[in-house]
């Protein structure tokens, strides 16, 4: 069964350092999402791609976060510099289009010390 892949699964870093997360969506899925989930809360959308284009990044803290999906397949989310408040689970999801059900990856748990 096709799955969304994410790496790393866990990341511990110190504040002010740079971190990067990688996501490989289900093959053929044009839409890719990055979410942040703080413990005890639901996922919150950071950025949505349609192929290689950003559709929605209104909630992305652009002073420190960046995301790219250069060839419209896999994607990278970067944080520089990391802050203590960035500690969370970062989830990637994909769907055939922005109107279909989303399938989530296992997430990357980030701890900022």
């Amino acid at each position, binding site marked *: 069964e096709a799955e969304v892949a994410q790496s790393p699964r866990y990341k511990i870093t110190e504040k002010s350092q740079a971190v990067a997360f990688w996501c490989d969506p289900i093959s053929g899925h044009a839409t890719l999402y990055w979410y942040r989930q703080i413990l*005890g809360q*639901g996922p919150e959308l950071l950025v949505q791609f349609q192929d290689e284009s950003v559709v929605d990044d209104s909630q992305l803290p652009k002073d420190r976060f960046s995301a790219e999906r250069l060839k419209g397949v896999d994607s990278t989310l970067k944080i520089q510099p990391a802050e203590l408040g960035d500690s969370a689970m970062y989830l990637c999801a994909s769907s055939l289009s922005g109107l279909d*059900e989303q399938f989530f990856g296992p997430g990357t748990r980030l701890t900022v010390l």
Partner: protein
Amino acid sequence: QKEVEQDPGPLSVPEGAIVSLNCTYSNSAFQYFMWYRQYSRKGPELLMYTYSSGNKEDGRFTAQVDKSSKYISLFIRDSQPSDSATYLCAGRDSWGKFQFGAGTQVVVTP
């Protein structure tokens, strides 16, 4: 105010009981409603996907949507310890705007 509200729980039930989960939403543009299950330290997995008002059944799971009261429900029959997880409800409008609730933690005790 969040567009989807959900009681965080925890909700503890004995094995074999019916689990009843609820969400309310405020965005009248939501047409599609979803329930996801999330085990600890894992990504959410889709359980139920419904359109507009009505009921949908899949095995032990039943999802209900009442658009007139902006209320969505998930029922789990014959609950098992393996059903212990956090259940997230979500709504989506016709343009793809998607909003999750905070999730309800469910504990099924043997």
